[in-house]
């Protein structure tokens, strides 16, 4: 429509406009990232697959890889299960003021440091923390549970950080839903349950897809939350990379793991783009 009439910049002008960021990305982002591959594939100038073989030979590493994928998957599922009703609830609010107040609740976590929020979870989940005290007080459990430094703690912390990334895209799709479709379905005799199942939910799937892909990709590379809430027994790929670099100084091996994670992430981004259309988020 209107977009067609926009005066376009010439090739040269457009190129000049993007060149500063493009140059920055090429030198300090793209080149170093691609450099990970030769770094992990050559040893003293000779081609070797040693580091990759090492990674897949030792069961511990495969377990960490598998755990990372499992945790990311579960975080995505939980974000969907918890986030969808909230997004739906947000679209049901009639009053603008209350609506923006709730939306502010969703966005509030962005305003506080992720470190601080993660340590709040340490305080809440520790042996004599609020949650354990509450559970023992009500008599639900007799002894405090070991909640901290477990996969459970990591998942709670990650869901907490990533939930807004699920809620916002679903909310934005639901909000722009054509209400006439719902009215038509109601008129034709469907009850609320069927309207939701057959009309609203299918139409909101693009939002769910975008949210899920985003959460999953971000979860794969999560560092701070598993580092603090996971403890040494719940290593994820990112914390493993950090350990190899900063504790064991195994740089070549770290480069190999980083390259593997990079490939997985790029594959996910490409899939994301194919399924949902990444550039759609630009025009929203």
């Amino acid at each position, binding site marked *: 429509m*209107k977009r067609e009439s926009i005066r376009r*910049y010439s090739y040269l*002008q*457009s*190129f000049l406009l*993007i060149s*500063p*960021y493009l140059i920055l*990305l090429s*030198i300090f982002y793209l*080149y*170093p*990232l691609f*450099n*990970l591959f030769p770094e992990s594939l050559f040893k003293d100038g000779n081609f070797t697959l040693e580091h990759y073989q090492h990674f897949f030979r030792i069961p511990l590493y495969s377990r960490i890889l598998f755990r990372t994928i499992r945790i990311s998957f579960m975080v995505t599922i939980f974000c969907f299960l*918890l*986030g969808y*009703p*909230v997004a*739906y*609830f*947000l679209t*049901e609010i*009639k009053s603008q003021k209350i*609506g*923006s107040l709730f*939306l502010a*609740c969703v966005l*509030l*976590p962005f*305003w*506080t*440091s*992720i*470190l*601080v929020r993660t340590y*709040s979870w*340490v*305080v*809440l989940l520790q042996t004599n923390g*609020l949650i354990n005290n509450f559970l023992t007080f009500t008599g639900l459990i007799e002894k405090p549970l070991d909640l901290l430094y477990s996969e459970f703690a990591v998942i709670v912390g990650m869901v*907490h950080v990533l939930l807004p990334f699920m809620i916002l895209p679903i909310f934005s799709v639901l*909000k722009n839903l054509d*209400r006439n479709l719902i009215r038509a379905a109601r008129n034709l005799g469907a009850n*609320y349950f069927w309207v939701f199942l057959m009309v609203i939910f299918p139409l909101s799937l693009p939002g769910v897809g975008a949210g899920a892909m985003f959460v999953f*990709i971000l979860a*794969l*590379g999560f*560092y*701070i939350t598993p580092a*603090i809430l996971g403890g040494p027994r719940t290593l994820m790929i990112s914390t493993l990379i950090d350990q190899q*670099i900063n504790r064991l100084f195994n740089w070549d091996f770290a480069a190999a793991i*980083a390259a593997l*994670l*990079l490939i997985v*992430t790029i594959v996910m*981004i490409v899939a994301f783009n194919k399924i949902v259309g*990444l550039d759609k988020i*630009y*025009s929203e």
Partner: protein
Amino acid sequence: MNDAVAKSKERPSVDKSIGVNYPKILLGVFAGVIFTFLVVPSVITVPMSFSNTRFLVFPPKGFTLTWYSQFLIDEEWVGPTLFSLKLAICTTLVSLILGFMASLALVRGSLPGRKFLNILFISPIMIPVIIIAFAVYGIYAKLNLIGSTVGLVLAHAIYTTPFVILVISANLYRFDITLEMAARNLGASAFKTYLFITLPVIKTGIITAGIFCFIMSFDELVLAMFLIGTKRLTLPIKMFSQLQFRIDPVVAAASTVFIMAAFAIILGLGFLRRERKAIVSKEKGNDSFEQ
């Protein structure tokens, strides 16, 4: 985001046929629980920061302002805080300029391979930050940029500019180009048109993007940890190392200070917006001024 909510159309309610709507109540309760879940970890830092104990505890015990005085006076905390502020301000400026230029090209330019560029430009927020930090460390070591402020600003700008591009290009898509044409027709130069038409119209977008950038850079831990060298600390690094040592209430005090600052900014922006709306509606009353 508030604008988006404000714009959503009023819709006639179809729900009046049923007396008590149990699913809806259930949904409300569920949403309430989730909102609590989202808000609690941020909110409990406020009471914890006054706790008279050497560790973070909830519920807090006693009352003290020690942690605040330590955060605001102790050089060990003031130094990293000031450095983080400086870093975040520089990053925001660099990022806004780079991001604004790139958004103009993406939205209004004619670029071959725009789809690819769209994905490339957003990818820094999707690639795990530890990989970027590790990779960048390699090249910074070669170029002797480890520990330099410029190096840190550039690394942070890589990470924050995608958000600037997302926010500003969304604003540019909505921008009514005829405003610019009118200005040019009336004799304004291209530069003046940008200064007096384009920038004021997308001001909200720029401010939003700037705030996002600032927070992301100010809160960023991993890139800084890899690239800062040995001489200095940023606030997140200081917090992280302090917290590994013991769960220090100063961190809660710091967090509270910044939550308060954030509130002040939000309220201030809301106030500004209301003022502007009042002015616009007045103008609309005086003459039929469109858009």
